C-alpha cells in the first residue's frame, strides 16, 4: 500500500528494540518474559519488575482509538501537501496500559471518533540502503467489530 504520509516520508532507523515492530508483519509490543508486563515505548528493562529479559511479543492487533489530533498546519515541508491528516492514539486490547500512535488509513479525519474500534494493517516500504522490507504498523477502522 502507498504510505499515508507519502512514499518519501521518514523511515525508521532500525535498532534492536524496534526491529520487530517495523519488520515482523504482525503487531509486536515489547513485553517482559519474567512477569508478562507489556510496555511502550521499549526500554532496556521491565518497568514493572526490573527484569532485563524483555522482548517483542505478538499482539492480535486489535484496539480502540483513545484520542485524535487532526493536523492542519504542517510543521515539516514534506507534509504541506498532506494536511489535513489525523494522528490517532490506539490502546491495544491484549497489551494493557500500552497505547500506540498511528494513522487510520481507511477513513478521513472527520470520520474518526474516540472509542472507535480499529485493527492493525501494515504499510510496506523498502529500506533503500539495506534493501530490507519494512512493514510499518498502521490502523484500519474495524467496521466488523461489535
Amino acid at each position, binding site marked *: 500500500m502507498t504510505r*499515508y*504520509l507519502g512514499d518519501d*516520508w*521518514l*523511515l*525508521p*532507523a532500525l*535498532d534492536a528494540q*524496534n526491529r520487530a515492530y*517495523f519488520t515482523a508483519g504482525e503487531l509486536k509490543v515489547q513485553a517482559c518474559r519474567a512477569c508478562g508486563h507489556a*510496555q*511502550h*515505548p521499549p526500554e532496556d528493562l521491565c518497568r514493572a519488575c526490573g527484569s532485563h529479559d524483555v522482548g517483542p511479543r505478538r499482539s492480535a492487533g486489535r484496539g480502540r482509538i*483513545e*484520542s*485524535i*489530533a*487532526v*493536523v*492542519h*498546519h504542517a*510543521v*515539516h*515541508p514534506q*507534509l504541506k501537501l*498532506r494536511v*489535513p*491528516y489525523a*494522528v490517532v*492514539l490506539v490502546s491495544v486490547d491484549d497489551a*494493557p*496500559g*500500552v*497505547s*500506540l*500512535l*498511528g*494513522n487510520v488509513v481507511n477513513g478521513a479525519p472527520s470520520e474518526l471518533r*474516540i472509542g472507535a474500534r480499529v485493527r492493525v494493517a501494515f504499510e510496506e516500504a523498502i529500506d533503500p540502503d539495506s534493501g530490507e522490507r519494512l512493514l*510499518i504498523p498502521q490502523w484500519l477502522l474495524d467496521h466488523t467489530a461489535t
Partner: protein
Amino acid sequence: MKGRAIVAGVGESPYYERGGSPDTEFQLACLAIRRAAADAGIDVADIDGFVSYMDARNDPLRLAAALGLRELRWSAQPWGGGGNNMAAAVQLADAAVSAGYARNVVAFRALAQGQFGRFGQSRAVGRVGGEFVFSHLYGLLSPAQECALHTARFLHDHHIAADVLCEIALTCYANAQRNPRAIRYGTPLTREQYYAARWIVEPFRLYDCCPENDGAAAIVVTTRERARDLRAKPVAIVAAAQGLGPAYGVSGFQGRWFPGVFYRGVADTLWQHAGCRPSEVDVLQLYENFTGPALMALCEMGFCAPEDVADRVRADRMSGPDAELPINTSGGNLGEAYIHGFELVNEAVRQVRGESTCQVANVDLSLAVAGPGYAPGSAVLFGRAD
C-alpha cells in the same frame, strides 16, 4: 511563612517579535541579569550562581566572564523538556541559597528565536530513530500536536465544549492591554478574531498557540538576612515543587498518564510543602504553551474541577485585577511574550511587590505554574517576606 530565600530583584530585556531583537540572545541575557541586579541593589559582580533551563547556549562560565563575577559558586539546570522547568529553575536557586552554597543566585531564561530558530519545526530527512520513531513516523512532530492529543481526550472525557479554550486566550490578551511591556499591548483580541483564525491542530486554532519571541528575563535570589539591605521589597519563595512523570511524547501517552499534563504530583508536593490550599492563592500565572494544557494544569493543580470548567473558566471571571481568580495578569506567553515562561515568574514576583500593571489588591500568595504536558512539571509559590 516558609522559605529562607527571597527574590531580591527582577529584570527583563525589551520583548520582541521573533527575529525582532537588535541584540543577540547572549546580549539579551546579560541585559536582563544586569537589570535584575540593579533592581535588587546588588552589584552584578556579587552574583555567584546561575540557574536556567534548556539554555545550554548561555552557559554560566560565559556569563560569569561577560558580567565580571568575582566568583561563581553554583550553576545548575533541571533536566527534561523546556518551559515546564521555569519554576524548577527558581527551586534550584532557592535550594542553593537556602543551603548556603551561594549567596546571590540568578535564575533566568534568554530566548532569541530569530537568531537560533524556532521550536516545533521539523526538517528531519530520511530516517528517525529512538523514541521519536514511534511518533514522527506517523506525523506527530510538534508540541502543539502532542498537546492536542491530551486536550482532545480531556475535553471528551469531561464533556467540555472546546469553546472554553477561547476564554484563556481572551483573558491573556485582555490583560496584555494593560502592560506596555507586552508584545500584544495595543493589539486586543476579539472572540470573532479567535474563531476566524485558522486551525493549527484540532482542537487548537492559531490563538490557542503561544507566539515565538526574542527576549530575556531574570530574577536574583538571595538570603532573607540580606533583605534589609536591598532596594526593592523582598519576596519570599514560600514553596516550589517539581513533579515526576514520564518524559514526554510517546511515554506520556501510556496508561495512567493519559490524558494528563504532569501537575497532579506537583500539586501534592507544593500544597503540602506550602501548607496552604489553591483557594488561598490570590493571583495565578499559568504557562500557556497552548490553551488546552493550561486548562488541564488549572484542574490538576486543584483550582477547578473538570466538571466546573464551563462555569469558572470564562474571560469575564479571570481577566483584570478584580477577577475572582486573576490569571496571567501581565498577558502571559500569549499576550506579553514567550520567554519560555520566565516572564510569568517576574510577573508573579511583581504581584507580591505591588508593581504589576494589573495589580491585584492585597496579594499574600502569588503562584506561577510552569509548562504543562512535559515532565517534570514545576510550580513556585511566592509570598510576602515581612
